[in-house]
């Protein structure tokens, strides 16, 4: 369980809704061996809010590289993309 959690990353995308946000993020993840475990999204007053849980056990790149690249992809399409280890959310919301 510990090991599994170590490999899980939460990716959040927040910004104005445009065509192809999920496509671009997913393409990058697929190219780099990052497996998507879960996706949920909402749109609140035109703002796109997405959360992805991914597994980086088989990733071809390290955390800093893919989180930096995703940030660049985000700013290219006008949304904020951030990557965080799942443990921070687990710690705060699960006993």
């Amino acid at each position, binding site marked *: 369980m510990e090991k599994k959690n170590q490999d899980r990353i*939460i990716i*959040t995308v927040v910004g104005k809704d445009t065509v192809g946000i999920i496509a671009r993020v997913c393409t990058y993840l697929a190219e780099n061996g990052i497996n998507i475990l*879960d996706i*949920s*999204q*909402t749109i609140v007053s035109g703002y796109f*809010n997405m*959360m992805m*849980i991914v597994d980086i056990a088989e990733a071809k790149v390290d*955390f*800093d590289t893919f*989180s930096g690249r995703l940030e660049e992809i985000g700013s290219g399409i006008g949304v904020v993309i*951030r*990557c*965080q*280890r*799942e*443990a*921070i*959310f*687990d*710690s*705060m*919301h*699960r006993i």
Partner: protein
Amino acid sequence: MINIAEVAETNAMIERENLDVRTITMGISLLDCISDDRAKLEQRIYDRICTAAGDLVRTGEEISREFGVPIVNKRVSVTPMALIGGAACHTPEDFASLAQTLDRAGRQIGVNFIGGYSALVQKGETKADRLLIDSIPQALAETEVVCSSVNLGSTKTGIDMDAVRRMGWAIRETAIRTADRGCIGCAKLVVLCNAPDDNPFMAGAFHGVSEGDCVIHVGVSGPGVVKTALEQVRGADFETLCETIKRTAFKVTRVGQLVAREAAARLQVPFGIIDLSLAPTPAVGDSVAQILQEIGVEHPGAPGTTAALALLNDQVKKGGIMASSYVGGLSGAFIPVSEDAGMIDAVHAGALSLEKLEAMTCVCSVGLDMIAVPGDVSEETISGIIADEMAIGMVNSKTTAVRLIPAIGCGVGDTLEFGGLLGSAPVMEVNRFACDAFVNRGGRIPAPVHSFKN
């Protein structure tokens, strides 16, 4: 599995409510660096700090990036230098040279502060303690990242009034020697009663002799998160209020616990304690004063403030203790003036006096903190203020502290600007009636009767 609302809640705390880990502090024992040859001692101290904490800053930044939570400070605390330097230092200048060694090591590894230029004199002073205290003004004038602290009393031993008198001098002299830099030296100098061995917060951090070789302590924060949570329960009764603070403190502390465990594992150093403190910064929305306002007082200092602070402090501890495996340090709410925009406003509004702040220190950690006083206040008056605060700590079996900044050349109405996390300090009025005959008596105040628990 974590859901989107939980992720959004955590990230809102970080992005909008200033949730952060205030400090990762590595405590390093320097006991085995001791030598009677000062050059050898300084080399060993430098090498030990650079070896033990060389990766501290990088690791802190790495954790911060991966978890997406800011870690504001990375610091080092060391064994009180009066113990380390006693064999090699024969003059105050010798000790000041050790401070420079700490400063060089601290800057080399890139930490924000290095604490432990300290003496523990709660019952009496050794020759080394006296030399170190005499050297404090010079040491703080000549260094950038070194913090100094002196423990002057404890519930178990009483108060060393000789040392209280000398620290009145040391504080004023430090202000004079750093007057050209806004008396900044005094922001890095604190006196304490019942100082904890495992405090990660500056300026009072030192690595106590009861600690191991090397340890990681973490100080959490999050006044803005508590304030935002309380906005949702305006007008609700005390039960709801207290439950809300407790729940929020729990969440904030869990983040600290995670960061502490992670830092300890990556640096291969044991995890020490979490310090559950609500530590404000001058940033908008990162204020303990604004929590007190949200609880229901117009400004801190208004009637009701002490009670509001007491309940806040208690609920933070109750929530935080459940969230962490080891709790220590100062743990509670901090009420510095210069570092809290709401406190500064309260002073300007005429709501908050030094005397009310003293009352507030009876129910929270830590004490009279980051308060600028007029530059012409005598060292005896400073010693008198220190004695009062030490007595509160001694009698109530709690940590208290005094970090006053005599604003040399300034009076009430002026403001000292420090910038950064230290903020700006409005000069506050001090009761000018004399206490010289009291502080000049010499000797010790005996331990209180309730210290005899055997």
